[in-house]
């Protein structure tokens, strides 16, 4: 087995008496889609926030590409190559779709402390950003302000921004949430093709997508991972059936 | 002798702290419940002082003046809440700052129009004139002691109001979940007007009390307002307890700084120089304290959990 890209060990986070993350350990391997599933309130988003750096863990370690990133803020983790999408779309609302992506290209290229060259005519920003929009099928809407995009388009834009960072790993927090069945199917096949390029940790409620995509699945219940394995292993795990699928069925 | 002076200054610090608490309690309550930053709070302080001075001059009774200050500040508070402030609850902080800044201009110039530019004077009521002996051989103004006592009583009263009464329950509910209490059938806009008027009354009351120590004039509320902002920032915006602790810190640090810094500096430099440098540094002291506190606790000492 190759070295994991992302290595989480014994992560803990409490909100007063509530143990939102209770000793989670998890590995993300190259070329894989690792799905994180669990009932509502299991602490999936809290976990993603801690990995991305928008929430500080109480204890435990997060190693990314062999480096301990626990002390880094969100921006520093993103620069290392950890890209995320948000459960609820989080965009620069007044900027066009294109400029939202250009921001990510600009970050990847290095310094944002350039004060004179105009971005509106900067091909080195526009061309790669446009290419990303084309990849997710949003090129026709490039010049529409993010605030005026439809819900599904915003989700696509989030993915385009994450792609533009040329990351080493993705953290996707319910990328299909609120999408229609057709768009979900398209996104599923898109993510399927992406796994060899970039591994991803995927939080998703759409079980069809999870079972179609995941190389490995971890099941999170009340802040603890109760099982990790392949799709078949998870399907047949009695504890998972009891704790999770049993409820859902 | 030094002990007596020290005790006197400490009491002065407490008295300033108590005044600041009366201002800050209203500000922090209004922010906590309605999410509003109200720059015009200092104008309500001024209105209280003017009302007290005018009524006291007309009737000869400071006590009637005090009642008038409460009524006037609460009345004007309720009026501007209904006319202007309630349109600002859903706006961003910038709009709130600007609109309440505009209210200051209107209320200050309005007060000049009505009362003229000359200061009014308010006498300390006869029952509270005189001084009491201090341990160590000094004397302390009875009126200032009374202010401290009144401030402590108001703090206790506010605590009881908020923790024990039905209105207090609604205020606390309003802080945590606006929509929920509206859904439960509480008339939210009346609640907001009441809270605003309550904060205004506290500010007007403070203005009236201080009016007997200083002159009553337009603009008197502004330095106090800014100190009250420092208080609530130190204490944690939205927290009454924070306002109390912050007010005491600011009152005592400011007063003791002005008292002690020049003497401390005099140990290392000529007296005249020590006095000027000491005074300059002392005037900055509370802001330094605030910056230090915020550098370590960016949401103040008793930040409401959100």
């Amino acid at each position: 087995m190759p070295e994991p890209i992302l290595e989480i060990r014994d992560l803990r986070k409490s909100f007063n008496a509530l143990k939102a993350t209770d000793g989670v350990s998890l590995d993300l391997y190259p070329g894989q889609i690792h799905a994180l599933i669990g009932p509502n309130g299991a602490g999936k988003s809290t976990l993603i926030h801690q990995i991305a750096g928008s929430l500080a863990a109480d204890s435990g370690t997060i190693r990314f590409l062999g480096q301990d990133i626990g002390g880094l803020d969100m921006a520093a983790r993103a620069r290392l190559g950890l890209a995320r999408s948000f459960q609820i779309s989080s965009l620069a609302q007044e900027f066009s779709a294109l400029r939202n992506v250009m921001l990510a290209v600009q970050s990847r290229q290095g310094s944002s402390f350039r004060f004179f060259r105009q971005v509106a005519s900067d091909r080195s920003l526009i061309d790669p950003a446009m290419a990303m929009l084309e990849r997710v099928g949003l090129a026709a809407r490039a010049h529409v302000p993010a605030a005026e995009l439809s819900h599904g388009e915003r989700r696509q834009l989030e993915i385009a921004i994450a792609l533009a960072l040329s990351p080493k790993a993705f953290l996707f927090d319910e990328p299909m949430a609120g999408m229609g069945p057709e768009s979900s199917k398209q996104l599923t096949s898109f993510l399927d093709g992406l796994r060899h390029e970039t591994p991803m940790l995927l939080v998703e409620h759409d079980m069809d997508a999870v079972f179609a995509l995941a190389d490995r699945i971890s099941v999170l219940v009340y802040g603890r991972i109760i099982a990790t394995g392949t799709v078949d292993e998870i399907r047949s795990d009695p504890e998972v059936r009891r704790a999770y699928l049993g409820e859902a069925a | 002798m030094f002990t007596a002076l020290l005790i006197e200054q400490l009491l002065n610090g407490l008295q300033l702290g108590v005044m600041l608490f009366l201002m800050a309690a209203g500000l922090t309550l209004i922010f906590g419940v309605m999410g509003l930053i109200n720059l015009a709070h200092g104008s309500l302080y001024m209105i209280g002082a003017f009302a007290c001075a005018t009524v006291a001059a007309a009737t000869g009774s400071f006590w009637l003046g005090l009642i008038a200050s409460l009524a006037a500040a609460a009345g004007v508070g309720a009026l501007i809440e209904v006319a202007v402030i309630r349109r600002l609850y859903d706006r961003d902080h910038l709009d709130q700052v600007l609109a309440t800044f505009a209210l200051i201009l209107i209320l200050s110039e309005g007060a000049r129009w009505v009362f003229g530019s000359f200061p009014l004077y308010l006498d300390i009521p006869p029952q509270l004139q005189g001084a009491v002996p201090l341990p160590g051989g000094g004397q302390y103004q009875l009126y200032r002691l009374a202010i401290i006592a009144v401030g402590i009583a108001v703090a206790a009263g506010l605590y009881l109001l908020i923790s024990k009464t039905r209105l207090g329950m609604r205020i606390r509910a309003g802080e945590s979940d606006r929509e929920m209490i509206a859904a439960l059938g509480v008339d939210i806009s009346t609640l907001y007007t009441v809270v605003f008027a309550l904060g205004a009354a506290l500010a007007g009351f403070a203005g009236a009390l201080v009016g007997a120590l200083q002159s009553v004039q337009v603009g008197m509320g502004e330095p106090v307002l800014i100190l009250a902002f420092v208080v609530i920032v130190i204490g944690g915006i939205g927290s009454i307890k924070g306002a109390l602790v912050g007010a005491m810190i600011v009152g005592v640090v400011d007063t003791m700084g002005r008292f002690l810094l020049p003497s401390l500096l005099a140990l290392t430099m000529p007296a005249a120089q020590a006095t000027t440098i000491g005074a300059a540094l002392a005037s900055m002291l509370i802001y330094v304290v605030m910056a230090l506190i915020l550098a370590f606790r960016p949401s103040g000492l008793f930040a409401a959990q959100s």
Partner: protein
Amino acid sequence: MTRETTINLLLALLLLAMPLAAAGLGEPFYVTLATRVVVLALAATGLNLALGLGGLISFGHAAFFGLGGYVAGILATHAFNAEPLVAGIPGTTSMPIIWLTAVVIAGLVALPIGIISLRTTGIYFIMITLAFAQMIYYFAISWPAYGGEDGLSIYVRNAFPGINTTQPLPYFLACFTVLMATLLLFRLVEGSRFGSALQAARQNGTRLAAVGIAPFNIWLVAFVLSAMITGFAGALYADLNRFVGPSMFSWHMSGELIVLIILGGKGRLFGPVAGAMIFVCLEYVLGGITERWQFFLGLILLGIVLFARGGLLGLLSGKPRHA
């Protein structure tokens, strides 16, 4: 050319033509009035960088305005009295040196203030910037070396090589040139990578961090740049009035700078210019009618905040800004 660009050009021409005409008609007072517009517009342009582009509601920009003013006043006083400043460095009456010093000092003071203030957000940021400005205000009042409460007079307006600054019109033209150059700079910065990041920080700081750009650094640089421009304006203001006093540091001044931006249109290039024109007109026209003109200023401001949120340029150009 968009409608807003046309309006901007017209405003610039109007601002230039009025004092030229006034000087031609022998009315130097109006030239001074126009210079006041220019200097206030410059100060507010500084704030507009932080507030309009970056969304940083600084309620303490008077600190930088006053610092710039005091740099001019203090350097000129030392030169006038022929006393060295410190360590044998003499004062000066040379505007280029004064301007440079004002800009550098404002930036140096803004750096620690920004580092501390930017740890906070929202209402705390408003309050803490206000408090820092008050701190400097009280220091200026209680420090007697440079006039304390009484302020400092500049007996003869400082000099610029090749320009007779003691005449109203040349001084106006110098200030106007500075303003136009700054506006050009503002436009360039707005369209640059830095400007993109800054505007994104205002719209959604979390999004900016998620693509790997720390909003703190962007905001800090914007805050310092913004203070430098406002400090520059302070130095010009001191020479305009030939006087500096603690009121330049007052929180009313900070409030007025915000008001200028809002009157004209927040985040718009010429918002501060339009705002300063309206403000000085009101001050002059209403002030001529009644001593209590601020009462009416308050009413107008209240009306704008409650009912016309785009400011004058928002009304004239008729559509919200979109990047």
